[in-house]
């Protein structure tokens, strides 16, 4: 037979009903990877894109050249941020299940990716997240009440009811508005960083993209612009193994690591254990230092696992083994930092339980307050006429006319419905989309 070409279709190591198998992952022992000088050229440090920077070892010690040597109080703050992020996520998921918000996306298992990065950067650095880095908001001091109000589309919603839940923005905290369209933020982060360089400021930018979304052209734009202008930017690619139902092989991860794309563009690529707080912190700090001293951009691949469903519209048991997350070889970021603190003699199970309880109570109190500003079904409600604001700075005539048309319509409905009618009625949520 003459040889013929044959289409290769990537296939994940395990589907529902099969044994989870993570043997495809290349792991390095903790402490095994060299930490080059921040001025090293991309060409000389290509090994970083193949190996895996890890600091916490199996005995919960911090080892090797990447240990950022943080003081215990800082580690305790980190633990607190990560735990709060998780408890917030859990609560919002439950609230969605009760039908009180329309949608939610958790970051379970990926808390270190956001929390460590935000802690390793300066408050003036600009962040361009995807929808799965709520830890950034927590570190930057965003009150949970405000996040909840956004999810509720209520009278205190920062987005004035215009966005689906989790599409936050935080101007004063230097976190950009989250888009539902995948990948768009990545090259925008590069543009922001270019402006900082043009203006001669020393703030840098960071962007986050999922490994699945790295297939979008936006990823290539970001890498090219970052490389061409040596922009002061950290490009974080969060490889959580799954993009809804497709595994990372469908984004090109079967043949090379995602970090290896960096050297192809002339950008250092580093693969880091995304569930190791200390490793993510150290790598971010290294990349930030490079950016700040004009050594250029860095691509960081965070190797992690999406432990929860893609979103509240998703059911992962349809496409991956139900218990796959248990087999994830890099563990849980919160448990690992907790064990490290315990090993240092700076933490205990009792203190952890106490913190857990305290943060749960905090989340409950925040939720109570948030609900008092309204929900989708119970007042107070935003004024629907505000939907015409902010399309432009100055409202053009067509929108002015339409706003008046709607005002008349609402008044007519109100008088028709009689005195007992609410100005804005309750709406049930009909069929839900699966996704995101």
């Amino acid at each position, binding site marked *: 037979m003459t040889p013929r070409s044959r289409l290769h279709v990537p296939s994940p190591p395990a589907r529902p009903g099969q044994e989870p198998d993570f043997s495809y992952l290349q792991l390095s022992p903790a402490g095994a990877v060299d930490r080059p000088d921040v001025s090293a050229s991309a060409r000389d440090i290509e090994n970083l894109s193949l190996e895996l920077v890890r600091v916490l070892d199996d005995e919960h010690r911090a080892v090797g050249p990447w240990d950022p040597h943080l003081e215990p109080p800082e580690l305790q703050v980190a633990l607190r941020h990560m735990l709060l992020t998780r408890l917030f996520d859990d609560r919002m998921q439950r609230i969605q299940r009760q039908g009180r918000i329309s949608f939610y996306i958790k970051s379970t298992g990926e808390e270190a990716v956001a929390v460590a990065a935000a802690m390793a950067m300066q408050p003036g650095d600009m962040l361009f997240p995807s929808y799965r880095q709520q830890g950034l908001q927590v570190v930057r001091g965003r009150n949970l009440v405000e996040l909840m109000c956004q999810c509720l589309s209520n009278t205190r919603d920062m987005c004035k009811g*215009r*966005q689906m839940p989790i*599409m936050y923005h935080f101007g004063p905290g230097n976190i950009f508005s989250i888009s539902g369209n995948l990948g768009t933020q990545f090259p925008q982060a590069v543009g922001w960083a270019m402006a900082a360089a043009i203006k001669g400021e020393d703030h840098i930018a960071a962007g986050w993209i999922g490994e699945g*979304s790295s297939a979008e052209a936006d990823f290539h734009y970001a890498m090219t612009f970052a490389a061409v202008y040596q922009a002061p930017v950290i490009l974080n690619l969060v490889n959580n193994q799954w993009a809804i*139902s497709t595994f990372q092989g469908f984004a090109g991860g079967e043949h090379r690591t995602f970090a290896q794309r960096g050297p192809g563009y002339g950008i250092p690529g580093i693969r880091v254990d995304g569930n190791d707080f200390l490793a993510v912190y150290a790598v971010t700090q290294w990349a930030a230092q490079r950016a700040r001293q004009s050594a250029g951009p860095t691509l960081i691949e965070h190797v992690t696992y999406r432990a929860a469903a893609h979103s509240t519209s998703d059911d992962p048991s*349809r496409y991956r083994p139900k218990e796959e997350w248990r087999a994830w070889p890099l563990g849980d970021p919160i448990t690992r930092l907790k064990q490290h603190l315990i090993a240092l003699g700076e933490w205990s199970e009792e203190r952890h339980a106490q913190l857990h309880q305290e943060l749960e109570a905090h989340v409950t109190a925040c939720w109570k307050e948030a609900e008092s500003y309204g929900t989708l079904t119970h007042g107070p409600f935003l004024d629907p006429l505000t939907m*015409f604001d902010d399309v432009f700075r100055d409202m053009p005539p067509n929108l002015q006319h339409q706003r008046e048309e709607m005002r008349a319509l609402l008044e007519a409905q109100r008088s028709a419905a009689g005195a007992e009618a609410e100005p804005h009625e309750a709406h049930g*949520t009909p069929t839900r989309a699966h996704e995101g």
Partner: protein
Amino acid sequence: MARMNMVQALNSAMDVMLGRDPRVVILGEDVGYFGGVFRVTDGLQRKYGEHRVLDTPIAEGGIIAAAIGLGVNGLKPVAEIQFADYIYPGFDQVVSELARIRYRSASEFHVPVTIRTPCGGGIRGGQTHSQSPEAIFAHVCGIKVVMPSNPYDAKGLLISAIEDEDPVVFFEPKRIYNGPFDGDPHKPAVPWSAHPRGEVPDGHYSVPIGRAEVVREGAEVTVITYGTMVHVAEAAVRTTGIDAEIVDVRTMSPLDSDTLCRSVCKTGRCVVVHEATRFSGYGAELVATVQEQCFWNLEAPIKRVAGWDTPYPHAFEWEYFPGQARIAAALKEVTETE
């Protein structure tokens, strides 16, 4: 005949075509193993294999470009874009390539690609899961643009689209995937099984592209609409008691202006309804066409009822949605004009 909702009818269309024509391939994000986020391709990969039903990387530009390459090399690709709101990364491939390859090569090359994509709001999807961008595509010369309003048409039109030798962008109003939504979110959902157009043949049949349909006959006024709004308009007509004729456009491009204008010349009055934003919306084309061909028969100015000229807001989707009340008001205004 079987009872099918729109998801099942679309699935059946692809099933029939995969079975009949070995050139047909399906591709898109999550369409293979998982069967699509709306389950429209459910079971097709299991039945036809991984080389006929392909999961793709998340890259709409890549999906559409690859579909063009597949089509140029003799296959008949049916690409799914997960939400119409996410089609824009592939827009250049649609406008500059897909739509013009036949023209620029004087028909030496042609691209029989179908792009399926769910559109429209009413599912609390906010601005990135609710858009109706049909006008943007109808404006492009060289692609056909289709939007069915019921399971029977959905299957028949999708089969026509796949069999077409020219590219078709096929919009699926997702609010009516499971039932004919009449615009009132407080009412319990009605399934397609209770609707005559929920009756769908199991096998092959087609509904021609480029043909509108009169779905309700009437004498006083013509409502020209499509997609979800067909059902909302029917309900509005019922509540007003006005004897309206309703025309389901079904194909935005090429437009069946004869059917539309025959109706308007008969009734002398016209209301155009769509969910998409009003300014430069598809309604503008409809109104212009009707005006050109029916001017001497018109007894009142034509009215448009459409989404407001803002992005689709999450909290106010029902204030945004051009529901029964706005259609009824327009019907009254147009029929009361002397």
